[in-house]
């Protein structure tokens, strides 16, 4: 029985691991675009650039021709980037009470407050810790 419990715990840990990190970094997101759409980009978007959504717009225009995987992933990539940006934009506000409580007198800028919140992790509210995770700031 003990073994079964151990096995279940191991599974539960594995299953819960991805749930914690619900957003991914910009590098990871855009890497997916390169991997899933690289071939289509080289075929249909030879003159488009990464700037100003050039690649995304070009793939959209050629969606009838690009691979199914690229069509699925290019949409995912955009939402991953959006989610990460939104998560980062909301950290300061979500953590404002924790900052005031645990990082009083810590000077703003250059990541000083974040460093303080990371150090105070055991005391910091679950909400703020989650916000830090989602922003990719840990």
């Amino acid at each position: 029985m003990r073994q079964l419990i151990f096995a279940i715990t191991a599974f539960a840990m594995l299953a819960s691991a991805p749930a914690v990190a619900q957003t991914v970094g910009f590098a990871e997101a855009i890497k997916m675009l390169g991997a899933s759409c690289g071939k289509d980009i080289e075929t249909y978007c030879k003159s488009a650039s990464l700037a100003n959504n050039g690649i995304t717009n070009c793939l959209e225009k050629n969606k009838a021709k690009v691979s199914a995987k690229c069509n699925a992933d290019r949409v995912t990539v955009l939402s991953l980037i959006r989610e990460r940006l939104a998560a980062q934009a909301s950290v300061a506000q979500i953590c404002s009470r924790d900052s005031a409580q645990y990082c009083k007198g810590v000077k703003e800028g250059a990541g000083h407050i974040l460093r303080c919140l990371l150090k105070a992790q055991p005391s910091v509210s679950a909400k703020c810790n989650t916000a830090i995770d989602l922003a990719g700031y840990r």
Partner: protein
Amino acid sequence: MKTYLLAGLSAAILAVSSVGAAAQTKLNRNEIINSLQGAQQEVDLTADQMQKAAIENIRKYPGANSPHDMPLSAKLATLRQFNVEITFEFDSDRIRPDSYETVGLIADALHTPYLQGQTFVIVGHTDAKGPRQYNLDLSIKRAQAVREALVTTFQVPGQYLFAVGLGEEQLRDPSKPDAAVNRRVQLINLGYK
């Protein structure tokens, strides 16, 4: 019962090893952050001055190769900086898909509170093959392409981000002017403005 345990264990080992593999990738965000953070409060240098120094160097000392380092090079060497390799289409400012991840990593680093609010210059460099003016122009376009990608696709605040091209005026290895090591994109922290 035993099967459950085995299944649980092997899944756990798989998870551990995949984390290990991820940690071994050549370049990561924290490496960029660690090299760039801790800028002097005020750096007495602007992107515009850097660009002018390169243009001036070609005008004053024309020829196939620059006879010496660009003015400002000693000063540049004292600043917090990081070199990355970004591959472009031949003769073009188009970033190749295999370098998207690197641009994303720069975005990851610049979007952390450790670097926010500081001014950065993206500096393009070429090797010494080809005419200097041509190399200068190409490096300017490439640095601008990286800046644009960061500002638009990844929404890095544009007011803190500048693009400069130094062509072949600031070789990384002057003893091997045509070597690939000279082709690079450099990030330099110009501190708080």
